[in-house]
């Protein structure tokens, strides 16, 4: 049974079409991912689903409620973890959670019980009465997840849940989300532009320029790229190119001072390749297909801006902390 249904959803900002007639459905209990570069329309879609934006046309439903017409019903059914932290750093962990509990109209005793329960889940019980401004980035994220789950939502939205976090913390957060899913029956809808992160999803929609260009399981998506990628550098690449064409009838292409070829079972192909080439081989590397290759295949581009986005995030963090200090 699908818990999120999106039908021909479009959002225009003046001349820009941020979301361009997308349709998809998410099943209950699924981890569904939106993968795409910055500016692809991921956050706009989330904002429509969580009732912060109204669509220009089309329809979005969560748990049977229309996002545009029944915002309060939808809001009660969802928990959100935004790209940027939305905690009040001037309050303690407990106070942030209590604030949330009261906004969602949990009664006092239930609120206290859930707060303790959720703090235990994210392993922050010992920091209950500490100010959030003293928390690390990973701790803040965990607290936000605890907060997002406090009112027992049916769908948890994660918008770039690990952006700006170091890889180690990123892994911890994911271990945590996966454990959580095994314990609670919850649907997760997430956006990301990190490939490794998208691998955690049951199904992925690849989105570019506001359109869904592919939607499937990570394994199936990767099958779109035919096999593994081998990168080989020889003393005479031109001649190697011709030999590969002749012996294996494989079209290699020149890239980065070497040759790139796609084949299935690359690990078994390499010995054959080395054996057949008549010139000296300087280096060989094998790469299993990633979602990035899928994206490259579909759009002719890699998921760009990764570096730029991260540095922008750092700048934003700097400006924030700087302003906070001035306050």
């Amino acid at each position, binding site marked *: 049974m699908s818990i999120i249904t999106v039908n021909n959803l479009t959002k225009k900002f003046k001349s820009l079409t941020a979301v361009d007639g997308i349709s998809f459905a998410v099943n209950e209990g699924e981890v569904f991912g939106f993968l795409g570069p910055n500016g692809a329309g991921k956050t706009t879609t989330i904002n429509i689903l969580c009732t*912060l934006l109204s669509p220009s046309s089309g329809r979005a439903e969560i748990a049977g409620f229309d996002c545009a017409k029944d915002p309060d019903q939808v*809001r009660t059914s969802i928990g*959100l973890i935004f790209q940027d932290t939305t905690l009040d750093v001037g309050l303690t962990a407990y106070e942030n959670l*209590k604030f949330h509990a*009261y*906004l*969602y*109209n949990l009664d006092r005793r239930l609120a206290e019980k859930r707060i303790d329960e959720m703090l235990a889940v994210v392993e922050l019980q010992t920091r209950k009465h500490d100010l959030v401004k003293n928390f690390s980035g990973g701790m803040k994220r965990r607290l936000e997840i605890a907060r997002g789950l406090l009112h027992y939502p049916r769908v948890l939205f994660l918008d770039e849940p690990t952006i700006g976090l170091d890889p180690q913390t990123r892994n911890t957060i994911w271990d945590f989300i996966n454990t959580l899913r095994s314990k609670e029956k919850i649907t997760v809808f997430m956006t990301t532009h990190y490939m490794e992160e998208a691998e955690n999803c049951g199904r992925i929609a690849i989105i570019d320029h506001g359109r869904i260009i592919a939607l499937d399981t990570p394994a199936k998506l990767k099958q779109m790229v035919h096999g593994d990628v081998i990168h080989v550098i020889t003393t005479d690449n031109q001649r190697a190119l011709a030999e590969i064409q002749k012996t294996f009838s494989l079209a290699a292409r020149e890239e980065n001072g070497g040759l790139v070829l796609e084949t299935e079972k690359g690990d078994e192909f390499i010995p054959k390749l080395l054996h057949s080439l008549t010139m000296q081989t300087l280096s060989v590397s094998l790469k299993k297909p990633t979602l990035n290759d899928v994206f490259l295949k579909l759009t002719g581009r890699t998921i760009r801006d990764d570096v730029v986005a991260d540095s922008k995030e750092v700048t934003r963090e700097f400006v924030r902390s700087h302003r906070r200090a001035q306050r």
Partner: protein
Amino acid sequence: MIQLRPIYVICMREFIKFFREKSRLLGTLARPVLWLFVVGNGMGSLIRPRAGFSYIQFIFPGMIGMTILFSSIFSSISIVWDREFGFMKEMLVAPISRLSIVIGKTLSGTLISVAQAVIILVFIPFLGIHLTIRQFFEVVAVSMLVSFCITSLGILIAARLTSFDGFNIIMNFLVMPMLFLSGAMYPVTSMPPALRHLTLINPLTYGIDALKHILLRNGTPPLGPEFPLLLDLFIVAVISVVMLTFAALSFRRKE
């Protein structure tokens, strides 16, 4: 439309933060000290007492008004902070009405301003003003009305301010002129006509005049109340309702 628990918790958050930030409490006390005892004494040497009131006593109601002005504007501008630092989203995606958010912010801003106004009353013994219990409660009541009015104005501004960069403009072109053109430091009637007209459209003028009615009871103009008390209260009340209505409306549209 109006949900009590969210309003309660929005207020609680502001109170907790107000009492946690010691610098804000300290600032509340420091600013009037500077005005009363430095400016008040300096200017006071130029202006001789009239109708039994000295200059320093004359500006005291204005200092309560000033405290309310700064506190109320600061409280409501916190909406812009909330937006800038993302916390506003936490409120906007919650199943509560925009009106509840506006009411919560207005109520907390008002109560914090009143608390600060009451704190200022500790200077009373140093000023030679006699204050009865009844007068004390009158001051609290008038402060509440004035705080409510200025907070509503602040929320109206905050709803329209998209970034924190506008804050300095608000301070220089709204808050400071409101203070200087309010009868807080010099009587309205003795101002040049152009300035007097501006003063007459400032709600703070009437709020401070109402406080003068209470604190400078037997004073006569220029160092005393200049308008009838009921007119003062009426004007502040009407402006409050207008401001809050516009604030609620523009908040709904904006967000």
